[in-house]
């Protein structure tokens, strides 16, 4: 069970870490740089939210498989198979949870007073410096909420994961997959224990988020 918990955390943390820079970059491009075609990027990035996870899983299967472009590249260059590894599970969780994080980031960045950022520009700061010294610190709460949303979604990912990573105990089996298997096999006690672990994990995550929000920050006294 500890192993399942470890795999779950590993997958969710990896997915969140992969998504974090991408979601920040997307938010910056769409909300702050207002690049042309930003709305297309927005739709593309949000699509996993609107599609059944199993569809995403199947698309990833096609991409990551031996005959898929990414799968072939990984096999040729690195000599590894991605499918049915924890990396595939992490990738699935990342794609599924990305829209939640990215959308929260965009809302948070929208909420930053543009005049503050313009003031910083007029004081000699380039767009990137403004992003890191103004936008990010001022959007802190919303960004944190986005990370939480993405992380908890990654923790609970099931549909896409089972397609690309299977449910291999000790390798790719995360808590939701393990619970599903226990229920299928009629091991009620094991299922309930796993559910308890799930609940504990969720509570710990939300508590950590709330604690981070209470950290004293200047100007918000």
């Amino acid at each position, binding site marked *: 069970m500890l192993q399942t918990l470890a795999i779950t955390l590993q997958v969710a943390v990896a997915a969140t870490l992969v998504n974090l820079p991408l979601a920040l970059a997307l938010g910056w491009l769409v909300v702050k740089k207002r690049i042309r075609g930003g709305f297309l990027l927005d739709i593309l990035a949000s699509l996993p939210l609107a599609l059944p996870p199993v569809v995403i899983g199947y698309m990833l299967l096609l991409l990551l498989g031996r005959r898929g472009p990414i799968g072939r590249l990984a096999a040729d260059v690195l000599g590894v198979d991605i499918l049915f590894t924890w990396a595939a599970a992490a990738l699935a969780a990342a794609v599924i949870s990305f829209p939640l994080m990215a959308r929260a980031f965009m809302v948070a960045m929208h909420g930053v007073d543009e*005049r503050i950022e*313009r003031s910083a520009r*007029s*004081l*000699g700061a380039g767009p990137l410096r403004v992003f890191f010294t103004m936008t990010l610190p001022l959007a802190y709460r919303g960004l944190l909420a986005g990370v939480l949303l993405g992380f908890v979604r990654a923790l609970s990912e099931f549909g896409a994961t089972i397609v690309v990573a299977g449910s291999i105990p000790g390798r790719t089996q995360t808590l939701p997959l393990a619970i599903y298997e226990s229920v299928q096999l009629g091991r009620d006690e094991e299922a309930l224990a796993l559910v308890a672990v799930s609940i504990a994990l969720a509570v710990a995550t939300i508590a950590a988020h709330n604690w981070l929000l209470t950290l004293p920050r200047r100007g918000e006294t």
Partner: protein
Amino acid sequence: MTETAPQGGAPPFLEFRVSKSYDAFTLDCEGVFPSGITAVFGPSGSGKTTLLDSIAGMISPDCGEIRAGGRLVYSSRARVDLPPEKRRFGYVFQHGALFPQMSVRANISYGYRLTPESERLAAPDDLADLLGLSHLMDRGVANLSGGERQRVALARALAISPRLLLLDEPLASLDAAYRASILLHLNRVSERLGVSMVFVSHSLSEVLALAPFTYALDGGRMIAHGPTPEILAHPGVSRIADYGTLENILEAEVVDSGGCESASALRVGDALLVGPPTLSQPGDLASISIGAGDIILSLGVPPMTSARNAVPAVVRELRDAGGRVLVHVDLGVPLVVEVTPAAAAELALRPDQDIYLVIKSNSILVFA
């Protein structure tokens, strides 16, 4: 850009020709501003802020050219469009737009640190001193008063040692008392640091108190530009201006604070005025305001009057402004007095005439 040379002798500092269209609004204007303080006056929606943002590089005009201090910062033809951080003009927003996550000191130091050492003219601590912020440096900005916020915004903008300071209605959200004090601070800053300013305002009193040169906009087009007394009475301006609220905002030295029963004594220019009691201590500088319509002109000292002040002054110029006459007088400091055309004719007012200003002490507002 030859047709609009500034008057008043100061060399041109800012030259621009700007065109910018939005859905329901077009700004299309050109101008030449002298060094020193220039006001951009106009009603809301006249394009003042669009012009200021174009100069600052916050927005890109559709076409035109902007040159400041001899440097080309925007040209549609030469495809030059420096971003704001390369223009390095100080910019002060209406509500300050302070950095809420930082202390007062960090706010003021933000741009200073980004300024090359060789170009730094004034250190944050000196600016804080100049603007009366020294005691607030280690505070957060959340609990500052409106006036303090604007002074921090001003210090922050000045810390980059800008050659040009752009101010977008910096006083519009302030109480009268703060407004007057910021105005006087702006005057002081301009004198001490020699920085040119473009000051956007819809208030003639502010324009009068601050800017020797005024550029008036209406509906996205320039309607008048020139020395402020001339523009103040310009037919195009008098159509959009509300002279009823015109006030003289001046700096006064408190000679005697007065008490609950007694009046204060205030030195304004060459004159000693009797005003209402004030909390300021003798020797303090206070800002005062006198309505242009609250001053009576008299050819001699009135023999018996309830007004406490009858001080000698000299008429400088007379301007007809849509059914009234604006009389600019010199009291050691310039003042404007609003009278009816009939009164002006009866007194046979003319430039260089000696005259008395009769002012009730209660017409003088003293801001600590």
